[in-house]
């Protein structure tokens, strides 16, 4: 299994230029809002979540990760019809978890990235479900089949997307 425990000294921490830091999440939010109307199957993907996981794992800083997740999630909430904060809370948790995991494990290879993305997709769905039902009183129904399938699909797309975004990494 490619996930290996690595000491802090062995892990490389990356940073990104400001245009990439701002532009990539915005592009992801834009595509997420634009494409599902043209390609209905695209609604199963969550590009803002994939971007959150990528930045969190690459920076390997929990504080940076949670703020990145919070910012992306809150903007996603602002575009939707429901109260602001549901996606924000879910992506904050994911950002924190992904960066904490990235600080401890080597998640540079495709297998590790696939597993991490699939797992965090389910975590994200669970947090969203809890907040939406518990606080906003939305009548969501948990569907394991759909959740796992969507998680796997996001994992596959995430692997491809991360290799693309790796081009923008800058070593500290």
């Amino acid at each position, binding site marked *: 299994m490619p996930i290996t425990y690595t000491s802090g000294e062995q892990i490389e921490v990356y940073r990104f230029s400001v245009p990439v830091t701002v532009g990539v999440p915005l592009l992801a939010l*834009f595509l997420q809002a634009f494409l599902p*109307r043209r390609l209905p199957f695209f609604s199963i993907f969550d590009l803002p979540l994939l971007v959150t996981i990528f930045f969190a794992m690459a920076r390997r800083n929990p504080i940076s990760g*949670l703020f990145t997740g919070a910012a992306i999630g809150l*903007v996603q909430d602002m575009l939707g019809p429901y109260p602001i904060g549901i996606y924000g809370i879910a992506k*904050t948790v994911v950002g924190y978890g992904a960066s904490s995991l990235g600080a401890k494990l080597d998640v540079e290879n495709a297998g590790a990235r696939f597993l991490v993305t699939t797992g965090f997709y389910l975590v994200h769905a669970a947090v969203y479900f809890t*907040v*939406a039902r518990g*606080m906003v009183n939305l009548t969501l129904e948990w569907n394991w089949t759909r959740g796992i399938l969507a998680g796997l699909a996001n994992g596959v797309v995430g692997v491809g997307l991360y290799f693309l975004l790796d081009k923008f990494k800058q070593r500290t």
Partner: protein
Amino acid sequence: MESVLGRYRNLTILVGVLFLQVLGLAVQVKRSADEQSTRLIRVWAVDLITPFERGLVWGQSGGNNLWHNYFFLRGVRAENRQLKEQIEQMRLEQVRLSEDATQAHRLQSLLAFKEQFIAKTEPAQVIGSSGSDLSQSIYIDKGSNSGIAQDMAVITSGGIVGKVLRVYPSTSLVLMINDQSSGVGAMLEKSRLQGVVRGTPNGELILDRVMNDEQVAVGEPLLSSGGDQIFTKGLPVGTVSKVSAGKEMFLSIKVKPAADLSRLEEVLVVTEKQERAPVAESAGRGRAADILAQRLPSVPDKPATVPAVTPAGAGTGATGQGVGTGTGEKPQPNAAKIVTGIGTAGEVLKKVAQKPAAADSATNAGAGSGTGSSAASGVAPKPVSKASTNAASSATPNVSSNSSPKSANSAEKPITTQPKPSSPQSSLQPAAAEDNPH
């Protein structure tokens, strides 16, 4: 304490950020009716994303228009021919429907009903969605600058789409009817059962609040009931796709939306509704009987003289009982049953309907046709003047369809030789009475 916070700095910040978001969420949930608290930041986000969407949609539609309107015109002539044929068929249908509508309006005006009409719409293009598969909402490229306001209905030619949830200067967020937080007052077209159409978390539509003991047929159309004060009454909502017993006392009814909600491109926003009492059309415009007469097959003009007729009671009940037979100069024993003179088909219908039951067997078949062919009621053969025949033939469908309503109405008043009380058994009575504007 400081050492503990320092040691768990990351976790502390996480808890703090989460706490702030939960607090903000709680405030919003508590003030759910007050959208102003988060309006400003929503405007920022929308202004950040929608210009790109608008630009892409503009480019896409421009390219499509260029291709479809200038280059790819194959089959346009054949399509044009088909559409013309379709228009002809729809015109025929329109005549029938307009008469039905006129009648309905007349009845509604009698009962002082008030209806809501769609007075003005604003076309808009769909530029994007909310970006979440858990909410069913779309962004359109028209906002407050175009007169869009909150809670306006959004429709397509197929059916209803949703309502305007939030309005920004140049865009609006539309909550579609299949979103789980939406609800539309609806009724079944045939059974008139009323319920609430709601969205499900999966983006499906269900009809709620219909009792278990009601009969609901699959395929039955569903219309808006107007009870939600957003959609005017009678707009297509969808069709029933599946009916099963629900958990409690209500049926579980799945609905297929009338508008294709997953492939929306252009929509209409209802910017103005009018509430007014329906105005009954004046009788001169065209009465049901006139229209009926126009639809019936025509009969060629009769010669100037009328051949011998069968005695009373032996009549076959064939067409044109007493219509257009000319005036009887001498009242015969059975002449009371004869309707003489000329007039519009509606007037003739009324006269025939006033005949006693004994003649009903003959009139039911013949009078409605209004063909003015031959008398069949035991009138002694009399010569009929040319003028009388011509005038009588004005009651035929062909002639009445060509003549103006005014000339049709100005025909001589029909005369019955011996007025008889109307027969309550006559099935034509209500129709004839309704046709007579007086």
